[in-house]
């Protein structure tokens, strides 16, 4: 509570400073954008700093690859265009993401891109929808994007300008069922979902379907983010003898929960610890030390995806290796996800009658059906208009065999069977 207050004060201060900064920003950047008819401007918003920085960490590198590929511009319908990507950092702040989107729209971008988490994508998509600028995004559950922004099930889509591709809760469900069937368990699932938007959405969407599929779900209820002691949940899981745990925590909460669970001996009875949100990136798991290996995860991209980028021509392994060579850091699944967004964006532009017309670009996105480095992006056959569902592949963190502390290996592929399964799922408690 106190921390909220503090954040609000911080934000208050930022708000005071923001107009001044925005004003200077507009003056400076107004000159940067070439508003001529021969240049296509693409806005790109992602969280490069702040609590979501681990998502945005690789974006600079991916954008560099894209800019190299676009150095000579694009030829669309016989006309040559220069392509200019204007990338902005949302600083993990939804208000700032919306503000940046409005700025970019005022600067006349032809296509808006947003990547990683509802905190970035939803405000940007809302700004794009309001201003009639085609907006494309990926990496958040599509239900939270579609229904979370006011669409109603069974009714026509209210969105004319915004499109999203990638995994949804339906894919999570399929993947978890496929992953959990790999081991012989007593089918008792302990779930730990936080009291936030993700947590409630996942509880509503997944728990009833787990039960239908024959699992016994032990749900101690939503916990508050920032809790430092999880004794009561752990005691409950022990008493009910759960062998599978599914949780959607932020990294500090998961570290607190899982260390305490280990102190209490819960880790000795759990065969599958299926973690989402935490565990997308190696650093989240490395902080757990010897408790890290064999934690199960689900990946929206993996370097062994058998696809090639339409923009840069790289395949997953090449992209990951180049990142590791240039930075010395381990590859992450965000590399391919961000590049797939740029793939889909440039393909849409190519197919547009006139890439400088918002309506033409929007129509091109709506009829897009291509294979990017992240897999198929197909807006012609989605479950709802404006959405193209994508894979979330069952994976596991295992002790590293090469130069990294941990390796990320694929254990099942129900949501995209082209992706090769390389490892057997290992039980956590052995």
């Amino acid at each position, binding site marked *: 509570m106190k921390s909220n207050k503090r954040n609000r004060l911080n934000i208050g201060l930022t708000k005071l400073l923001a107009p001044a900064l925005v004003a200077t920003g507009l003056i400076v950047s107004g000159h940067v954008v070439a508003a001529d008819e021969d240049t296509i401007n693409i806005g790109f918003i992602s969280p490069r700093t702040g609590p979501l920085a681990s998502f945005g960490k690789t974006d600079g590198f991916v954008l560099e690859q894209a800019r190299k590929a676009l150095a000579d511009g694009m030829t669309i319908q016989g006309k040559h265009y220069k392509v200019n990507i204007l990338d902005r950092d949302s600083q993990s702040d939804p208000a700032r993401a919306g503000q940046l989107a409005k700025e970019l729209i005022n600067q006349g971008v032809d296509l808006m891109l947003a990547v990683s988490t509802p905190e970035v994508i939803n405000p940007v998509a809302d700004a794009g929808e309001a201003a009639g600028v085609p907006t494309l995004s990926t990496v958040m559950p599509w239900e939270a994007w579609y229904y979370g922004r006011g669409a109603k099930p069974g009714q026509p889509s209210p969105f004319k300008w915004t499109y999203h591709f990638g995994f949804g809760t339906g894919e999570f469900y399929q993947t978890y069922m496929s992953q959990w069937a790999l081991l012989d368990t007593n089918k008792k699932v302990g779930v730990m979902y936080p009291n936030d938007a993700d947590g409630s959405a996942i509880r509503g969407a997944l728990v009833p379907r787990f039960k239908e599929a024959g699992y016994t779900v032990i749900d101690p209820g939503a916990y508050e983010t920032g809790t430092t002691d999880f004794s009561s949940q752990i005691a409950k899981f022990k008493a009910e003898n759960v062998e599978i745990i599914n949780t959607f925590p932020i990294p500090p909460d998961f570290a607190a929960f899982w260390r*305490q669970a280990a*102190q*209490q001996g819960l880790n000795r009875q759990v065969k599958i610890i299926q973690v989402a949100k935490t565990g997308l990136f190696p650093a989240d798991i490395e902080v757990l030390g010897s408790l890290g290996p064999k934690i199960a995860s689900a990946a929206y991209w993996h370097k062994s995806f058998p696809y090639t980028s339409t923009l840069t021509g790289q395949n997953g392994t090449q992209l990951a290796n180049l990142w590791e060579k240039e930075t010395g850091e381990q590859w992450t699944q965000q590399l391919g996800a961000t590049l797939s967004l740029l793939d889909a964006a440039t393909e849409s532009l190519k197919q547009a009658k006139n890439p400088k017309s918002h309506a033409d670009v929007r129509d091109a996105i709506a009829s897009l059906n291509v294979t990017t480095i992240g897999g198929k992006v197909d807006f012609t056959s989605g479950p709802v208009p404006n959405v193209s569902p994508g894979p979330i592949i069952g994976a596991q963190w295992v002790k590293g065999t090469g130069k990294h502390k941990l390796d990320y290996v694929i254990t099942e592929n129900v949501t995209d069977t082209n992706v090769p399964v390389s490892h057997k799922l290992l039980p956590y408690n052995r």
Partner: protein
Amino acid sequence: MINSLVQAILLGGYYALIACGLAFMFQVMRIINLAHGSLAILSAYMVWMMTEALALSPFTSLLMVLPIMAMIGWLLQRAILERATKGGELLPVLSTFGLSIVIDNLLFQHFGANTRTLASYVGDLSWESYQLFDLWIGKLPILIFATAIIVIGGLDLVLRFTSLGRQIRATAFDPDTAGLVGIDARKTAAIAAAIAMMTVAISGSALGLRGTFDAYAGAPQLLFAFEATIIGGVGSLWGVLLGGIILAIAQSVGALIHPQGFLLGGHFVFLLFLFARIYLNRDFLTLRHWLGNKSKGESL
């Protein structure tokens, strides 16, 4: 149930450890240091940096960070708190609040957004446990609890039985009169601030060992420290230990009633104690009142 109680008491030890620096500063210098949490995170980062760079054990790094934090405490007192106190009661609160924002953002600037921990440098200590019948008791929580007792006990002994302690108490009571009998009040206050910052370094390391931290992790720590201090009664260091334990038990009971009740339970008991302190006989809730007047004249 017994297990929850044991876990809560051990967690209370951690809260007491983070609170004792705050309580000590308030008791001795009449300053509520709102930068307390941020300073703890600062020291956690320093310990982390040394551990990482010199491949030391975090415990060795802590020994090296202690004098650095003591120095920071000294400077803090001389450069900021001493001047702020002259401007009335509110000014130290405002200036330490500002200081905490500055520290948080400098840490973010320098260390970025990645979550850090010290636990991965101590092998399996962070999650190993002793098994007693049906009870599983973590080794690290016991270590932290014991540290809290040692730190609080040590501070208490220093205050009671050493000449430095007498000087600190005298300065706290009335700096001007203390000056009349030959005590250098400025120096004494600076020493007290240095001692407080050393406890902050210890609590920062405890945080790093039992959990994770990032640049903005200070505020929740300050909140827990503040609550434990108020519940325990600002006048006594042992009260802080009791306050920490009461806070942790309240949180655990809250969590037993409802999973979202963890933080809420703590806040509720904190408010209860706060109002009780304001409206009831001030003596009623102190340790002294319940233990008889053994320690008369000791607490302030």
